[in-house]
């Protein structure tokens, strides 16, 4: 009888658990424990700075993978990954035509995981374009652009253009033959615009052909100008998803 009144003895696992999660430092970071009850789980989403973009509850059909394939979220995840790898790449890269190519060579040869870093940045950029395109197709084929979500579709088209521009401006930076001639071909197309073609091309390149001015312009746009603009549009995009009532669903 006495056994029932005594608290059960702590197992080894419990001891480890308490050691990690029930100490002063951990609890100063995560103010509550693991949210076990529905109420706490909603609070965990609503009060967490990273999670509060989400609503606290969503419709059952929206967690089905085949409804969204996570494409929008993954596009955003690529943007985050590109930001992280991009910042790391900036440590090793100087945007001058004397140094740019050499910096990339040295990054690949001398920096630990430098080649991997550059590969990650490039493949993530390609992946982001493909994911954004697929996300657009998903939204179209599920009819999710219909009222009241018209404007968010427009914001999405702008985000698609900005994604292409981000990738295009980054393409020049290695300053190799591939980069140089791809940008030459691309900006020549801009130059063929009626009325303001030559002016736009001059503005973009800072000259009549791809050179030092073009490199610094593309670099600045790539690492700060366009990321700032796309961040603003993404903020609006995500905000409007919530404001317009979450994901579209049949009436």
């Amino acid at each position, binding site marked *: 009888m006495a056994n029932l009144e005594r608290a059960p003895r702590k197992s080894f696992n419990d001891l480890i658990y308490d050691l990690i999660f029930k100490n002063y430092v951990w609890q100063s970071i995560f103010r509550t424990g693991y949210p076990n009850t529905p109420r706490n789980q909603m609070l965990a989403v609503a009060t967490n700075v990273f999670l509060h973009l989400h609503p606290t509850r969503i419709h059952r059909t929206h967690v089905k993978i085949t409804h969204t394939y996570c494409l929008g979220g993954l596009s955003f995840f690529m943007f985050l990954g590109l930001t992280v790898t991009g910042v790391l790449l900036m440590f090793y890269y100087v945007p001058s035509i004397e140094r740019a190519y050499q910096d990339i060579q040295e990054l690949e040869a001398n920096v630990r995981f430098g080649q991997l870093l550059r590969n990650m940045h490039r493949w993530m950029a390609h992946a982001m374009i493909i994911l954004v395109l697929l996300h657009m197709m998903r939204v179209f084929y599920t009819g999710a652009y219909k009222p009241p979500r018209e404007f968010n*579709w427009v914001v999405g088209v702008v985000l698609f253009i900005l994604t292409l521009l981000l990738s295009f401006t980054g393409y020049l930076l290695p300053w190799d033959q591939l980069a140089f001639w791809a940008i030459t071909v691309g900006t020549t197309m801009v130059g063929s615009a009626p009325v303001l073609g030559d002016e736009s091309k001059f503005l973009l390149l800072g000259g009549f052909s791809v050179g030092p001015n073009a490199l610094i312009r593309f670099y600045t746009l790539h690492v700060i100008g366009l990321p700032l603009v796309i961040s603003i549009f993404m903020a609006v995009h995500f905000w409007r998803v919530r404001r317009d009532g979450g994901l579209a669903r049949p009436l």
Partner: protein
Amino acid sequence: MVSRAAAAIRTRPRREREAEVLVWPDLVFIEFISALIFSIALMVLSAMVNAPLLNRADPDTTPNPSKAPWYFLNLQELLLHMEPAWAGVIVPTIALVLLAAIPYWDRDTEGQGVWFGTKFAGRLTVFGFTAATLITSLLIIWDGSLHVVWTENVIRGLGLNSDFTWPGGLDWFRNLRGFDTGIPWDSLGFTIGGFTMFEDWRAIPLGIPGTTTDPWLLNLNFPSFLSQQIIPVATMVGLPVLFVLFCKGLGWIHSRRDIALLIFSAFIGVYLTTTIVGTAFRGQGQDLKPPWDIVVLEE
């Protein structure tokens, strides 16, 4: 504006709590797993495939073929078939504006939130995509004069005529430029009140002098005006119209949503075809070639 937003809210159903799940853990878990899968997949890809790095940029050495980044190769492909101003700027601008305008044109709230929400959506998508892919491929093959090469090879190969060449009378059918050279435009010209077609065509003042180095908005030089502008634009406008009329005839179209489905799917087909052809099937001098025959020369 207020009334429209209010109407949209009014039509939204009441929240069914029992049909809802909690974001933590259900959604957060999915997001975490998909992010993890992509991180690992990209890490593995990056460990196996290196990002390309060619020789240092050299303005004096032009690679042949020179290509834009792959996501602009659809536009570079268009460049081969029409006036650069159309291919590089006007067509993509119009395409993006039309894309953004879809929800302002198709405002019906029926069929949202489900994949392919109308009765014939599946057929329209498959038809739009397949037909557009096929027609675009055929147009590219035709403008690349592959039908000329193939016809000559087949007739020679069958031994029907070992010296067979494409008949001069069919020169206008070689490719788009064939319309310029294969038709005797000079003998077809006429004069109205001192205005001689087609020589005086360029005298039509269409442009804003001083805005560009070339005072012409677009090149009005006949007959290239016909082959580089009239025919491509008529094709880009006419084919979608034909698509819609055809599907209407089949009884597949009952709403604007159906038209949007058809045209968007066709757009995706064209977008993919031109991107793939531009990336993998264009060799030196932008000639059509199978991918394994493409070599980049530096000149």
